[in-house]
């Protein structure tokens, strides 16, 4: 029993500690793929450290939302990290506190506050980016819901640990048509939700074209550090959900020993690294879509997950 609480907190610690690393590795690999040297993989840590030690400037035309948003956005992925299988296959202490839909709502809460905060300022680029984020968000919602519902219907439960046991643990399920299609649909969803190419350019500085990065525009000092970290953690949490719940449970600890759980950390990170390789390849080979073509992109994701749902449910 105490181990479960310990492992749960260990999970949160892993998410907190390694999220900026994942972000750093992604940017470095992308540059490497384009034959450039790229920044150090620990650069996001240095950025967060620097920002935490700077002064914060807050516009006097903002309300409490602007000041609260970084904290809400920071804690949302932490809550979700309590619920999902990051290191272990068996449910931990807080596992039954919320299911996947609950986790999705909490993540959406963080994003919602960030959007509100962007509208809260009088900066013209803030609301523009916020409305675009909402457009991408509402088109992505059906995909989320259909994916979660399909997987839960098959598993008979909405708790991520149980879904993972019933959905991916039998290895024969890996090649099912619905499995492949759901993976592809969720991958397109991650690209959309996290603002990767082809939906948005994560390294672009041009405010008129920003979709997701615009929420960081007005923040400075501690707020900026928390928002950056929160963004990195949301990305990491989404990848973990994708890999551990939907793709394969490889690398997760089976037993209760501390050594096993600690061993799971590098194995899971290795899995994440493999995913980042695929992601970077996709990002380097596509171009950013024009704004209203994003609807087609997400429409295709929706169709794919509906097809996956039909394929799986008709076999029952």
């Amino acid at each position, binding site marked *: 029993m105490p181990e479960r609480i310990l492992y749960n907190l260990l999970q949160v610690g892993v998410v907190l500690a390694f999220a900026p690393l994942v972000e750093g590795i992604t940017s470095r690999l992308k540059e490497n793929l384009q034959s450039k040297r790229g920044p150090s993989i620990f650069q996001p840590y240095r950025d967060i450290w620097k920002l935490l030690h700077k002064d914060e400037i807050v516009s006097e035309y903002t309300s409490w939302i602007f000041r609260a948003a970084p904290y809400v956005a920071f804690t949302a992925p932490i809550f979700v990290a309590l619920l999902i299988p990051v290191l272990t296959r068996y449910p931990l202490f807080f596992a039954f506190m919320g299911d996947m839909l609950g986790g999705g709502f909490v993540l959406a809460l963080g994003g919602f506050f960030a959007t509100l905060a962007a509208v809260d300022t009088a900066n013209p680029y803030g609301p523009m980016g916020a409305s675009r984020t909402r457009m991408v968000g509402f088109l992505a919602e059906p995909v989320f819901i259909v994916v979660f519902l399909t997987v839960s219907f098959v598993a008979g439960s909405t708790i991520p640990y149980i879904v993972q046991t019933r959905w991916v643990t039998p290895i024969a399920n890996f090649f099912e048509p619905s499995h492949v*299609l759901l993976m592809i649909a969720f991958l397109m969803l991650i690209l959309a939700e996290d603002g990767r190419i082809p939906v948005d350019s994560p390294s672009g500085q041009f405010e008129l074209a920003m979709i997701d990065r615009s929420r960081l525009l007005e923040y400075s000092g501690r707020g900026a550090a928390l928002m950056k970290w929160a963004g990195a953690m949301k990305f990491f949490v989404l990848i973990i959900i994708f890999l551990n719940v939907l793709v394969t449970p490889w690398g997760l600890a089976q037993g209760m020993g501390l050594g096993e759980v600690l061993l799971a950390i590098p194995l899971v990170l290795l899995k994440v690294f493999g995913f980042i390789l695929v992601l970077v390849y996709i990002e380097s080979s596509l171009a950013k879509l024009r704004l209203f073509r994003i609807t087609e992109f997400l429409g295709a994701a929706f169709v794919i997950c509906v*097809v996956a749902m039909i394929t799986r449910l*008709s076999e029952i």
Partner: protein
Amino acid sequence: MNSTAYPVIFALDALTGALFLLTAIGVVATRQVLASLQLFILQSLLLTLSAVLLGVALGSVHLFAVAAITIATKTLLIPWLLRRTVSSEVYRTREIERVLNIPSSLLIAAALVVLAYVVANPLLRAVEVPFAQINLPLGLAAMFLGVFTVAVRREAVSQSSQTCRSSLSSPPPSMCRSLPWSSAC
């Protein structure tokens, strides 16, 4: 269903079927003539692979013949003919002119896949045949998507590749696969 009889082949066949359907949806969603032609070639390769897998599993020579014909006509002959008769400039620069915009087409495509499963369900319930569980609905879906895509294109070039797709191979092999043709006429 017989997934226990040939587990590996069943799994690979299911994977091929899923990718096949994915390319069919991709053709509905793509904008460029060249991309749709490439997706068509990819789809033909997947169809050939599926026919080969089923031929190995069911031990039927007819299916290997189907695979050979598919490779020869759909993957090699038809794209070559299309490239030759239509100038390469069309393929490089042309966007597909369509009657319906892409999100609506995608929604109708999703509805057609659902329809294919609904149509195939009573047929599958009536008879138990190995591999039909996966292949029959996917073949029907690909055929419906082909007919739909022909209906919403404005020009002959993109229509012709779709007609080939829907009429030449997709329903016959997927049904032939499901039937024990080995002792057929």
